[in-house]
Every structure is written in C-alpha cells, then in structure tokens.
C-alpha cells in the first residue's frame, strides 16, 4: 500500500498541470475579488480572511474531486485491471486513491493562504495556520469519495463533466465563491446543509480561534458516509464486469 501511495504521489508531482489548475483558479479569484468586499464582516471575520478560507476550500475541493474523478480514465485504460493481477488488494487501491486525492487539495490551500498574507497581510498564529491546513486537508474526505464514486460509476467522457458539475454546484451553493452572507435566506439554509459550506466552516472557525461546531461536523460526517457508500457501490459494480 505504501509503495502504491508513493507511486501515485510521484505521478502527481510529475504531472503538475492538474494541480496548477486547482491552484491558479482560486488564487486568481482571490486576487480579483478580495479587494471588492472592502470592510464587510463575513462569518464574523474580516472579508480578506473569510474569502481566503472560502477560496482555499474551493481549491481543495477542486483538487480532491478532479484527482479522484480521474479513476474513470484509469479504469477505462485497463490500469486498474493490471493492478488487480498483483498482490495489492483492491480495497487498498481505493484507499490510496482517496488519500492522494485528499492530498491534491493541499497546494491550493497553501497558495491561497500565501496570497492572503501577501495581498492583505492576513495574520494568524503558526498554530492556527497549521490547524487550518490540516482541517482543510482532512475535510476533503467527502469530496475525494464523491470523486471516486463518479470515477468508478461513469465512463471517462461522462465522469469529467459530472465532476465539474458537482464541483460547481457544491462550491457555489456552499458559499465558497460568494460568501453565504450575500445569499437570500432560503439559499442560505440550503448552503448550511451542504458539505462544502460545512467544510469551509471548519476553516472559518479555525481562523477565528473556535473549535469545529458539532452541527457542522455531523453534516460533514453524514455526507462522508453517504459518498463512501456511493463510492463502494460504484466500485463493486465496476469490478463485477458485465
């Protein structure tokens, strides 16, 4: 398992284009939009910090979803079958893939964080920075699992748009791009039920020095369990073969 994880990570490093997209998108968005919010207070934070967390989360979700969704290609190319005739158990392949997907969200978090520091002099203690990166890493678990569900469930030409649609819907409605403070009430209630909002909330609370909320954790965990179920089901069906 460790060897396979290493192998996957080396691949990720060798082909940084995918990561570049998930890094560039939120960084550029942050550069452009953070000055527009001015002195607004969002989620109890100054706008520069709140947007930084939202867009860091946006990048992390993008990374986790797209890398996990790429199993559609690996399945179609026959690579997963090739792995099945090695001693590596299929469950481990799934686990390693989920871990790699989660890790692919981290560069975006770091990059947007750096941009926040450089552009708006966002200041946090070292401990809060560490907690922020760690939570925005672990919190990508449901998105990695959703990506795997799509990747195992759909052919590559359908998986790509499906990943994109899921990503866009979840991140916009979850308030990662435009903060929920600007949402009408009904949409805000919807946002509160989404994993993306609860994921970013982990970050908002962290930079504010607060522990994750029990409601937030519960919502996030429920989505994680649901997506894990979907991923396992899709995985089983894909290996059953006809």
């Amino acid at each position, binding site marked *: 398992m460790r060897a396979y994880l290493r*192998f996957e990570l080396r*691949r990720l490093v060798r*082909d940084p284009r995918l990561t570049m997209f998930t890094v560039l998108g939120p960084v550029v968005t942050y550069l452009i939009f953070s000055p527009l919010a001015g002195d607004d207070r969002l989620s109890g934070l100054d706008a520069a910090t709140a947007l930084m967390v939202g867009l860091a989360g946006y990048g992390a979700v993008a990374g986790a979803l797209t890398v996990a969704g790429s199993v559609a290609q690996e399945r179609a190319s026959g690579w997963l079958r*090739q792995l*099945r*005739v*090695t*001693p590596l158990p299929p469950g481990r392949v799934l686990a390693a893939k989920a871990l790699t997907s989660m890790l692919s969200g981290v560069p975006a978090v770091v990059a947007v964080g750096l941009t926040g520091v450089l552009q708006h002099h966002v200041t946090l203690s070292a401990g809060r920075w560490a907690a922020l990166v760690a939570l925005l890493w672990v919190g990508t678990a449901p998105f990695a699992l959703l990506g795997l569900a799509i990747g195992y469930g759909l052919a590559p030409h359908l998986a790509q748009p499906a990943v994109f649609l899921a990503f866009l819907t979840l991140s916009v409605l979850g308030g990662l791009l435009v903060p929920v403070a600007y949402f009408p009430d009904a949409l805000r209630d919807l946002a509160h039920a989404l994993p993306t909002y609860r994921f970013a909330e982990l970050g908002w609370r962290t930079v504010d020095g607060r522990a994750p909320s029990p409601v937030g954790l519960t919502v996030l965990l429920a989505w994680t369990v649901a997506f894990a179920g979907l991923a396992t089901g899709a995985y089983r069906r894909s290996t059953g*073969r006809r």
Partner: protein
Amino acid sequence: MDDDAVRLAGLTRRYGPVRAVDALDLIIPPGSTVALLGPNGAGKTTTLEILLGLLPADAGTAAVFGREPAEAVRAGRVGAMLQHAGFVPGATVGDLVGLARALHARPLDTDRILDLAGLTELAARRADRLSGGEAQRVRFAFALAGEPDLLVLDEPTTALDVDARRTFWAAIRRYADDGHTVLFSTHQLHEADEYADRVVVLAAGRVVADGPPARIRALAGARTVAFDLAGGPVDGLAELPAVRSVEVRGERVVLTTTDADATVLALATGRGFRGLEVAAPGLEAAFLALTSTGTES
C-alpha cells in the same frame, strides 16, 4: 493436487446465451510452457481471466497452485500480461517496475527485469509516451517483476513487429528455462508451434486438441476434399487413405484428410465424383472436423 500450476475442471462461463467457455478441463503441471491456441472468440481470454481471478466462473472450478485464483494472485504466485492493459499518465518505466517489485515479497533485481524485457534504455521514459511495442515490453516487465511461478500472457505479441517478437520470445524462453510455468494465448499456429512445449487448441469454449506442437501441426495441416457423390455409394469413404472424417450434406460429401493427395488419388481410381474441391479449412474448422462426433471409423 497442489503441484498443478493450473487445474480447470468443468469450467463454464456464459455471456447471455453464448457459452464463452464450455465445460473446459485443463491441467497444467508446473515448469511447462503451454500455448492456448484458437481463433478470436474461442474463449482464450475468458479462460485466462477466470484463472487470474478477474472473472467468476458460472460453473466448474479453477485452481492455481491448489488455491482460488484470486488467492494465488494475492500470494504473488501469478504474474499476468493482459490485453488492453494501459498505463496511467505521469509514471515512468522505472516507476512502474519499482511499483511491481514493491508489491511482491521476493522480486527480481531491477536490472534483471529491465534486461529481460529489453527496457534498460527506456527506464527514465514516461510509460504513456511509448510505442505499442515498447508498452508491450513494459507490460511484460510488470508481469514478471515479482518472479511469479506462473506467468500468464494474453496474446502477448499482437503489438510487436517481427524483430520485437523474436526478442520477446527469447526472453520468455529464458524465463521458462529457469523452471517457471508459462501459459500464453495466441491465434497464430506458428507461435504456439515454435515456443510452447504443449499446445491446447480451443474452439467455441472447448478443448478440441491437446498435445505436443508437432502433433498439433500435423492436425492443422488437414485439408477438406469435397465432391458430389453422382450416384456413388457413401459406404467406404471413411476407409479411404488419410481420411479422418466424413460429412454428407445431401448430394455433397466433405472429407477431412491429413493427406489430400493420397485421398484424391484413391478416390479417382476407386469411384467416380463430380465437382471436386480441395481446401484448407483453417485452423478452427480443421480441429472441429477432426474432433467432432460425426467422425465415422
């Protein structure tokens, strides 16, 4: 029991109404190099997929070194080169060989693997940017990295040119000479003939011939001799020289023979005929005719 590399008994696999593998029995002792020969659709790939644990059987049993196929794979005793097994982007040949080695308890040395597969010069290249033949060699390297006791190769030479084929088979032979069991599928008689010490011919999911290459070659040399009876008797046709089977379709008779010259000569001197045709029926038809129950003897 435990000594058999492969033991298939009554193996059956259906796709809808089609029996891809039909009550197939096959035992392969360790240390042999066996060719699974047959046309496309004969059930070669399905058989191999079942004995690699990739596909469940509908009926019958498959055992590899006395274990369930998937278990034998998990134990690292089997290595396989599949058809259409692609590589993921971003990995070099060296990465792939390294991964394959890391997944096995007692792998071969990296240099040895690269040398056997003819990849020494390509180790730093990205596997998704290789030619078809080169990629095939990477598949080979991936399959043998763990030094499996049984090496399974599904149509291993399809993407290779003539030179690459020769190098490839030389490598396989070296691997087999070290006492490993090799099972490969092919639809080319000459490959089976040249590189296997036993040839198992499959047609329509069944074993239709099984023996040393020389015997299979002789069987495959069969011809059909067809003609109209023109009022002549059917009796005695089976007793003509070299005739292996007789089939009567109304007026027309089709004889399968291992020596068309002798058969036609005897026909011409002994009895009359009209519309004579001698044809090479192709591997599959030849084996089907030779093994069908319709043979009179």
